[in-house]
């Protein structure tokens, strides 16, 4: 197991390095002076351009530049955002909170609902309930998430007035304490629901396929021959096997949900990373864009490694295959 962990970590380091190089290359792929890419289009104080030129060694050979870039990065220097008057890293970290608040509960509930839907549909393969689930999955998988958000706003917030239209909290009333929490929760419902739909669609699809397949595995026959009850067989034998692909699908689609969250934040003016992303596009604040990409990519890699490790814990054959190589 330990060698598996090490190999996954090693892979992670390699991928992160590749991401950094990619980020570096983007700056230099842009037509024109790489300086523009590093500064963005926002007006900067006169001496700053020169400072950046030296800091990133733009007049030096490419390999030196790469080295300087990496050194800067490791020191936490992702550049400075003049549009927001903050270092990029601090800016991003300040906005991460709301995005996590949106994503994590959404992912959690989507996973739970998806599993429940899939597990209950599996034994009833071919029934009306099952076909409905398949149709719903296809829907959730194909619908553009930002449009879904807009439609939800129109129906539930504007026309029915049940839920707020935008933002994370009711700012006007200057709420505190419990009222503030309640306000945030009310604002959270529609955006979180938009993010959840895609996840529920894929999780339920995988859960259903995986459970109905596991029910036909031969070891179920052995378990029955032992005289075990069907409930015991389901919980102790079928589900532990069937949940493995479900767990991996949840983990490996984290990047997709991150993208979804970014798009949803735009619709709901949710003050997180996504909002920062779009305002930076409008402002042509390139350092922020690159910083967001970097952080997003690295966090996806981390989640991927975590999922790999979880997979190895749940399925001992994975560890064995790794050792065999």
């Amino acid at each position: 197991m330990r060698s598996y962990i090490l190999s996954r970590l090693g892979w992670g380091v390699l991928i992160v390095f590749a991401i950094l190089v990619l980020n570096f290359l983007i700056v230099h792929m842009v037509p024109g002076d790489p300086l523009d890419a590093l500064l963005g289009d926002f007006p900067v104080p006169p001496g700053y351009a020169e400072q950046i030129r030296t800091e990133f060694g733009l007049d030096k050979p490419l390999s030196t530049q790469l080295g300087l870039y990496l050194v800067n990065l490791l020191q936490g220097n992702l550049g400075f955002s003049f549009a927001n008057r903050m270092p990029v890293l601090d800016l991003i970290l300040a906005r991460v909170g709301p995005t996590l608040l949106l994503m994590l509960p959404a992912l959690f509930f989507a996973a739970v609902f998806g599993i429940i839907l899939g597990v209950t549909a599996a034994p009833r393969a071919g029934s009306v309930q099952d076909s409905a689930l398949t149709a719903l999955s296809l829907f959730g998988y194909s619908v553009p998430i930002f449009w879904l958000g807009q439609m939800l706003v129109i129906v539930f917030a504007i026309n029915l007035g049940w839920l707020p239209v935008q933002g994370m909290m009711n700012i006007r009333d200057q709420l505190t304490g419990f009222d503030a929490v309640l306000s945030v929760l009310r604002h959270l419902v529609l955006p979180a629901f938009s993010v959840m739909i895609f996840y529920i669609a894929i999780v339920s699809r995988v859960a259903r396929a995986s459970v109905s397949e596991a029910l036909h595995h031969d070891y179920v026959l052995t378990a029955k021959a032992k005289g075990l009850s069907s409930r015991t067989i389901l919980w102790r034998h079928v589900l532990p096997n069937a949940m493995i692909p479900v767990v991996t699908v949840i983990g490996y689609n984290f990047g997709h949900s991150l993208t979804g969250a970014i798009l949803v934040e735009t619709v709901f003016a949710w003050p997180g990373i996504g909002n920062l992303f779009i305002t930076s596009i409008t402002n042509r604040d390139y350092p922020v864009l690159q910083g967001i990409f970097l952080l997003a990519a690295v966090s996806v890699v981390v989640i991927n490694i975590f999922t790999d490790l979880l997979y190895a814990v749940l399925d001992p054959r994975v560890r064995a295959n790794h050792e065999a190589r």
Partner: protein
Amino acid sequence: MKHANRFITGMAKHPSGVVAGVFIALLALVALTVGFFHNLDPYVLSDDSMVAPSASFLLGSDELGRSVLAGVLHGTRVSLTVGFFAALMATGMGILIGAAAGFYGGRLDTAVMRISEFFQVIPSFILAAVIVAMTGTGLAQIIAVVGMLAWPQVARVMRGEVMRVKQLEFVDAVRCLGISERRILFGEVIPNAVAPVLAVGTLIVGQAILLEASLSFLGLSSAELVSWGRMLNSGQRFLFNAWWLSFFPGTAIFLTVLAFNLFGDAVAAVFNPRNAR
């Protein structure tokens, strides 16, 4: 001809795929012919702004008096163009790279697998948005970016199929005739391995359309071209009073992506190598 027949009879067993295919054909028809209908000009401004769907404006009009119907119909051109060419690029690259990796194996194979793993892990939309934001929003750029991000999916399927086919006996039989390895790859192996790739290619069209719509929703599209995503972008400001500005273009995106997903699933079922044997 035999393959075409098999395809048609196979597809007949998947009614949803057939309906989707018909819808796609209709979209293509619209895209090709809408330019000839002068009364469906999406750029024409008028004084009748913010009109709800009615007799004069079937799908309503926007803040500058432009017809939403015309916009939705014209949007097919950008979506299908980006979808088709990006998928074509991804499929072309994927077939060549995947086939080479599967056929020759060794370090080429390992390198290709590592690279495609990389592209799968990184969040492609964010990368695409960053690149487009920094390099410009031309149609060609968007197609190139989407295509470059999608080829690993095709490569993986192709590689798997090539690895399966190259072990079949007829390949050795042809080898004994003294034909070069390269001609075996292109003449025998690839043609027999390529069928499942078509299904992936179809799904990529759907992904590409969604990606382009998402990019233009964030404003990352050419301002002169009519695009569904861009219409949603403008519609965002008017959610309160003009729901039709967002509803119709969005429905168009949804139905189009859905159609490609359904069609791709049906194609995959028909060309599943397990069904052929």
